């Protein structure tokens, strides 16, 4: 990170003027720092995916370790996808290049690289589609916008389809709803046919397949980590909580991203969930087998997504729960809302989710049998089932980042806001063009949250940071809340670079802070062990 320029310099140097050279002839920049490390063979082998011919290679190399008939493999793969997805066909055929999407992409705004305009990202694939699958492309060649699949094009794909976070912001503005996330997913699926995926995606996927979660936490360790949080909760609230694991006959199975178990600040949200469930006396269990809400298969192929997702329903069936409650996670909820029931359903367990505390029937989840934690908590609040002391969050001036997938692949906008408005006294929205369906990505989604491209992530996260800075300066916002585990990992470095003084939290961390539990001792700290009042601060110093 020595080379990273100062924030003022970085933003000063962004230039949105396209270069002279046409994009078709511009080779991608695959110098170190500009690409994600390719995946290790062992991960591909473990998952039974095609592998490159060697492990010892870098995208900077002139020659890549791919099979000799790689063009044929891609061509056949492309043909297969065109036969399976109407979305792909429509998105290849209908774009008129009106340019409405051009400046909607956070990566374009932050880098100025024209191939980060969604239209050109899709053209990378579309030009090959024209060449291989359309008459006009075959006859008119270059004039018809067609490009044969050369090694340079393949390198371009690797560079730019791992430079898209599948956030779908462009698809909100497209008059035909062309969704670059879909295009990127297809392109990544094709690249994976040659073993060209990245390690930050495939290692978690392989981990998840084996241990049940991306971080490779084994069952005993998973249990220990949760118990460790319970010790912290006891220290803060005086309440001893003993969650159950893999318990048959529980009413509800709770699944959250493993990031909430593993890394701050997600862990504070984990504490929040556990406290909430204890407080309302929920009959639930955690699973060490279905110990991951997220799904890095989504960033690999639809088949891998299905293979990793299968654990949720399998475990719900084995344990005999009535329904599943899902924690705060972004792409996890894209998978649950738009894919899970289709891929691994119909759910052959339980019943339509009913909140056992309020009696509310979640008909919107009648078929998947899975409810979002903010839907659940908002419902508890509506029925006055929670005793809250929002002043315990008074040290924070909170703003809310709509995580891309719950926003644009679900429409979860008001539920988290209902919760936030109940649990804290100071809540301010960022500008309209940067929240809700127009929200900006953290810059690290879809498996790009990896160190080696930190500069790129900081650029991609700039539009989000710019909006946070606005509320930071105007209202003194110092806490950026969100409902996504990737956000909780990616936003802290983004904030410390662009908007120092703003911290990141999950919504249920704030719930945990505000929640007045039955029989708890007077709290002197929040879940981060930070003193609640200035008085307490002085005491702590003594």
């Amino acid at each position, binding site marked *: 990170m020595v080379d990273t320029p100062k924030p003022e310099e970085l933003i000063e140097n962004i230039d949105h003027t396209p270069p002279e050279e046409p994009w078709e002839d511009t080779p991608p920049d695959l110098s170190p720092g500009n690409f994600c490390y390719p995946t290790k063979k062992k991960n591909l082998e473990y998952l039974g995916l095609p592998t490159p011919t060697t492990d010892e290679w870098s995208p900077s190399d002139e020659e890549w370790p791919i099979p000799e008939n790689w063009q044929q493999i891609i061509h056949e793969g492309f043909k297969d996808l065109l036969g399976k997805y109407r979305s792909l066909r429509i998105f290849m055929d209908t774009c008129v290049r009106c340019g409405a999407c051009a400046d909607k992409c956070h990566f374009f*705004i932050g880098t100025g690289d024209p191939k980060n305009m969604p239209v050109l990202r899709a053209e990378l694939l579309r030009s090959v589609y024209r060449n291989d699958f359309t008459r006009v492309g075959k006859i008119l060649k270059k004039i018809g916008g067609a490009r044969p699949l050369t090694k340079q094009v393949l390198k371009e794909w690797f560079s730019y389809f791992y430079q898209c976070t599948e956030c779908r912001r462009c698809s909100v503005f497209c008059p035909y*709803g062309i*969704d670059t996330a879909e295009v990127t997913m297809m392109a990544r699926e094709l690249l994976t046919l040659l073993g060209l995926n990245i390690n930050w995606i495939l290692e978690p996927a392989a981990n998840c397949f084996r241990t049940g979660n991306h971080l490779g936490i084994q069952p005993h360790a998973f249990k220990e980590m949760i118990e460790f949080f319970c010790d912290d909760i006891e220290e803060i609230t005086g309440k001893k909580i003993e969650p159950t694991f*893999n318990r048959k006959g529980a009413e509800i199975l709770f699944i959250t991203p493993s990031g909430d178990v593993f890394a701050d600040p997600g862990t504070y949200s984990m504490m929040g969930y556990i406290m909430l469930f204890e407080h309302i006396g929920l009959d639930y269990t955690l699973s060490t*087998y279905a110990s991951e809400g997220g799904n890095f298969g989504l960033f690999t192929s639809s088949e891998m997504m299905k293979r990793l997702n299968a654990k949720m329903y399998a475990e719900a069936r084995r344990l005999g729960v009535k329904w599943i409650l899902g924690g705060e996670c972004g792409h996890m909820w894209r998978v649950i809302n738009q894919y899970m029931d289709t891929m691994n359903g119909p759910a052959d367990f339980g019943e339509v989710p009913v909140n056992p505390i309020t009696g509310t029937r979640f008909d*919107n989840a009648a078929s*998947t049998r899975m409810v979002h934690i903010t839907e659940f908590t908002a419902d508890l609040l509506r029925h006055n089932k929670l005793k809250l002391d929002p002043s315990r969050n008074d040290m924070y001036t909170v703003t809310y980042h709509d995580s891309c997938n719950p926003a644009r692949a679900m429409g979860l906008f008001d539920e988290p806001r209902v919760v936030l408005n109940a649990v804290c006294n100071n809540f301010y929205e960022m*500008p309209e063009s940067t929240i809700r369906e127009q929200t900006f990505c953290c810059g690290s989604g879809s498996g790009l949250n990896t160190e080696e491209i930190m500069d790129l992530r900081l650029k991609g996260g700039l539009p989000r940071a*710019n909006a946070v800075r606005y509320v930071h300066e105007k209202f003194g916002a110092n806490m950026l809340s969100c409902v996504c585990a990737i956000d909780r990992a990616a936003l802290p470095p983004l904030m410390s670079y662009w908007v120092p003084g703003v911290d990141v939290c999950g919504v249920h961390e704030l719930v945990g802070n505000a929640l007045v539990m039955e029989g708890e001792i007077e709290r002197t700290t929040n879940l981060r062990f930070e003193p609640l009042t200035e008085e307490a601060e002085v005491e702590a110093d003594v």
Partner: protein
Amino acid sequence: MNAAYLYSLIAVVLLGLISYAGVAVAGLEGFFGIFIPYAALVLFVAGFANRIVTWGKTPVPFRIPTTSGQQKSVPWIKHDRLDNPSNTVGVIGRMALEILLFRSLFKNSRVGFSDVGGYRKIYYKWVVWLWLFALLFHYAFLVTVVRHLRFFTEPVPFFVGMLETVDGMMQVGAPGVYLSGVVLFGMAMLLLLRRIVLPKVKYISIAADYFPLLLIIGIAVTGILMRYFVKVDVGAVKELTMGLATLQPSIPEGGISALFYVHLFFVSLLLAYIPFSKLMHMGGVFLSPTRNLANNSRAVRHVNSWNYPVKTHTYEEYEDDFREKMKEAGLPVEKE
């Protein structure tokens, strides 16, 4: 110089000259007046149908609407029925606004940098121009097409007459000016100009973007010339077009200006070009899975026709991997 633009321009000018010379010099009225329009129509119908059938036959494996508003969840949170439809009625509403009013394009914004206060900031500005040009362009096109039904029907349907009356209200002399033709020409010019002047749009434009615009400009120019400047025998034109419409084609005696044949040739080209180009957006806009599906896949299961079984890591395999550790940690196991 922009090659994509230049090639397209040359192509359209050449095609215009060919048809003009073909009629004026070589006397190929039958070829340009009868053969070409029929051939274009056949290509259009067959190509269009083929494309729609291909799209229609391709499965929609997943329900992937772009949700641009609040989902339907608990009853006391206000659901955005249009931007996040939960049923077919909502989808029809969303699609109608999209197709009739270009709603997504209406949301368009522009990114800019502001240097006020020393530290550079990003701002977003709502911009309406692209939406406005596009909407006027398409409606002017539609009105123009409907007006031309006059040439293919006898008696002329009442709505064509009504439309002409409305369209011609801005009368500034004789013959009455049809607003639609002027607007069509103007908007096509603006859309073209955009591609030549705006750096980003210029950068992404290819020949397939310039060619249809120039062709439409060609159609508009020849049409306007015929109506206001170079008089053509409208009666003879109608005789020819009615012949085409009734499948009894003939070239009217006395002849029609070659300009008309250029107009007809351009229209034929456009018609034949549609199924093989981005102009298929007129069909695609109805079928886009991010817009025409309800976001209800948690409430009602969406079925994927090619869903197939996959290899998973079962609980039994998992327990086999970790049984001892699980037992030691006090976790329940299925097999001791």
